[in-house]
């Protein structure tokens, strides 16, 4: 959130001061104040320069190397991309391909692109530049020729993505194509069987299909963006022709903001939980004053605006985002609303956690983070009261705060416009997550009942499946590396393409872990990856979703690795812990399982070794294990 009273000069001064102290959150906060509203090329130029020249932020940024390949002068978007990256905690370094050189960059194995080695490649090509026949020259072609043009373009895109995929593990973001501003045949186009707009649409479908077939390639819905903001103001025809800069200056931040949705998802920064206030947020009015029947919620304005907002929250819940409440209210009054108000779309069961009392909201948020076992930086707080918002911003600067506008009809846009919850996959686990957390709660309750820990483990009736990564589980495996922060020894993020590359190498061993217990199926909750090197088996990735921490699943995973090492005649199992702000729960992993520490660096990274001749990790006998022999790289 930003403080509305702040002037831009104040914000600039605050940024410079925060930068001097290397205070990450204050600098982000000030920078946000400075870029508030549309445009601001001057501020974006100033900020991006300052950001690019600063290192050693006290809270480090997540590094991200991107390559921009384009048919136009995309360098004008760079200040916005760097600055918006910073607002999202990313340290973005940019490589720009020669203007209009996107084909050469991709097809030439020795191009600057591959030397640079990006994490993400953005392919931003204007339809008009790639296939003029579908745009300005549409009327010069008959239907058959247009059909040929579209299939040729599809093939070319497919070839480019294949070449890129063979040479780089980077995620690829491909712009789709916006329809022309004015249609060549005028008002009749929409009625024609093969109108111009229809053809662009078909080309976009073909592009989406190519991206679906390519690992870690994703469509950027550029057509949708141009439509959303309006083609008339999106483009600057003058600058297109004079400086090859077709996108109007005012729109560049929108393009950058769209990229951020992808970058956040790729770097494991998507938000996982939204915490809402109640009064004037879920309903109009104040429950304590207006009473059960006085609050505004229903078919008429403003009640229908609050119903609409609840529907959006319900949609987030269905997408796997956790909902929670932090409200200053009497719990009994709120219970009454849940029980009796028929206009409430959201029910008590949709919320994973409720904090309803009169203490500070920062306290509520800490409690929610702890109970749901998620980091504060994965939480979005939504409140209509600027004072509460400011309290949270100051007390918990890592949290994203959305201070709602005065008009309830604007709530949904405020919540959704930045795509904070977006992810690049929508796995079946996501769609069930709300339910999965409920299972976890039941298991926790059981733990409180059981006497000894072993009794508890037995009572869970766990069944574990350790299986090779395959096409169907690849998405989930990559997602786990991108999203798991706590029980993760190295926190190395991988794209699907990078994992696929390792799957084909015999020295690598990759497996996913699924857990089933008496409360239900958790799906794939763990992932491991190790590499045979000399006489050693070296663990590269070893992670578990926080839903199943503390149930000795990790012991089974290590036992599996010992067994696999044995099959490969390896003598030692090696592991390392790269400490992060988050992964305290995993730090004792190797020590607890009898590994010896061999080294520790100044930054706290530690190295561990288990001599398999002397010791091994035994399978826990309170769970059923299903591990197929085929668990290994394709050999």
């Amino acid at each position, binding site marked *: 959130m930003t403080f509305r009273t702040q002037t831009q000069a104040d914000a600039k001064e605050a940024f410079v001061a925060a930068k001097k102290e290397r205070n990450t959150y204050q600098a982000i906060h000030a920078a946000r104040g400075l870029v508030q509203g549309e*445009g*601001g*090329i*001057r*501020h974006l*130029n*100033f900020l991006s*320069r300052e950001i690019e020249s600063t290192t050693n932020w006290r809270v480090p940024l997540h590094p991200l190397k991107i390559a921009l390949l384009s048919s136009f*002068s995309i*360098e*004008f978007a760079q*200040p916005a991309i760097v600055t918006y990256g910073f607002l999202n905690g990313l340290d973005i370094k940019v490589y720009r391909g020669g203007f209009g050189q996107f084909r050469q960059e991709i097809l030439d194995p020795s191009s600057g692109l591959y030397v640079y080695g990006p994490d993400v490649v953005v392919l931003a090509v204007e339809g008009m530049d790639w296939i003029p026949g579908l745009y300005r020259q549409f009327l010069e072609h008959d239907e058959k020729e247009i059909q040929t043009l579209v299939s040729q373009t599809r093939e070319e895109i497919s070839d480019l993505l294949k070449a890129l995929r063979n040479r780089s593990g980077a995620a690829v973001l491909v712009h789709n194509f916006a329809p022309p501003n004015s249609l060549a045949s005028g008002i009749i186009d929409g009625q024609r069987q093969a109108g111009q707009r229809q053809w662009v649409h078909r080309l976009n479908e073909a592009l989406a299909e190519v991206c679906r077939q390519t690992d870690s390639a994703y469509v950027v819905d550029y057509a949708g963006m141009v439509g959303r903001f309006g083609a008339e103001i999106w483009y600057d025809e*003058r*600058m297109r022709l*004079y*400086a090859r*800069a077709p996108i109007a*200056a*005012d729109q560049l931040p929108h393009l950058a903001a769209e990229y951020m949705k992808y970058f956040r998802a790729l770097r494991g920064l998507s938000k996982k939980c939204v915490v809402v206030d109640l009064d004037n947020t879920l309903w109009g009015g104040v429950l304590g004053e207006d009473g059960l029947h006085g609050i505004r919620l229903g078919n008429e304005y403003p009640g229908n605006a609050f119903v609409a907002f609840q529907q959006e929250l319900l949609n987030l819940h269905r997408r796997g985002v956790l909902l929670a409440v932090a409200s200053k209210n009497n719990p009994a009054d709120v219970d009454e609303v849940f029980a009796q108000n028929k206009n409430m779309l959201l029910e008590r069961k949709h919320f994973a956690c409720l904090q309803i009392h009169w203490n500070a909201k920062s306290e509520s948020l800490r409690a929610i983070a702890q109970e749901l076992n998620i980091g504060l930086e994965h939480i979005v707080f939504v409140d209509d009261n600027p004072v509460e918002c400011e309290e949270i911003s100051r007390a918990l600067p890592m949290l994203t705060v959305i201070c709602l506008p005065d008009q309830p009809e604007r709530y949904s846009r405020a919540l959704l416009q930045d795509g904070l919850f977006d992810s690049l996959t929508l796995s079946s686990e996501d769609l069930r997550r709300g339910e999965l957390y409920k299972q976890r709660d039941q298991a926790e309750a059981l733990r409180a009942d059981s006497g000894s820990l072993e009794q508890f483990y037995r009572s869970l009736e766990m069944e574990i499946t350790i299986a090779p990564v395959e096409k169907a589980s690849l998405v989930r495996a990559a997602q786990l590396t991108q999203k798991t922060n706590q029980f993760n020894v190295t926190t190395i993020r991988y794209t699907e393409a990078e994992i696929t590359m390792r799957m084909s190498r015999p020295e690598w061993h990759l497996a996913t872990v699924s857990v089933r217990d008496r409360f239900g199926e958790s799906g794939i909750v763990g992932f491991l990856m190790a590499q045979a090197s000399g006489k050693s088996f070296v663990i590269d990735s070893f992670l578990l979703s926080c839903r199943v921490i503390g149930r000795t699943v990790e012991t089974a995973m290590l036992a599996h690795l010992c067994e696999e090492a044995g099959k490969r005649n390896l003598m030692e199992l090696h592991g390392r812990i790269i400490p992060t702000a988050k992964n305290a729960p995993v730090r004792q992993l190797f020590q607890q399982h009898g590994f010896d520490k061999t080294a520790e660096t100044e930054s706290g990274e530690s190295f561990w070794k288990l001599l398999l001749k002397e010791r091994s990790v035994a399978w826990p006998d309170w769970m059923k294990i299903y591990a197929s022999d085929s668990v290994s790289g394709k050999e």
Partner: protein
Amino acid sequence: MDQRIKEIMADVLNLDSKSIDETTAKDHIESWDSLNHINLVMAIEQEFQVSFDVSEIESMLSFSDIMEVLDRKLQN
């Protein structure tokens, strides 16, 4: 107005706004390349809510040229 222009130039061209005067010209400022020229023009357009013709863009080659073009624009 001249102070606002100086501040925009300082932000876009990485200059100290106090160092900018009538003699500040594209030819003498290393950071004032063709890329930043467009950035500068776009920044001025945003700040003053105007739109320059290409002929105007091509003539805004110094602080005093910019002032002159913008003056004319704002009077129309």
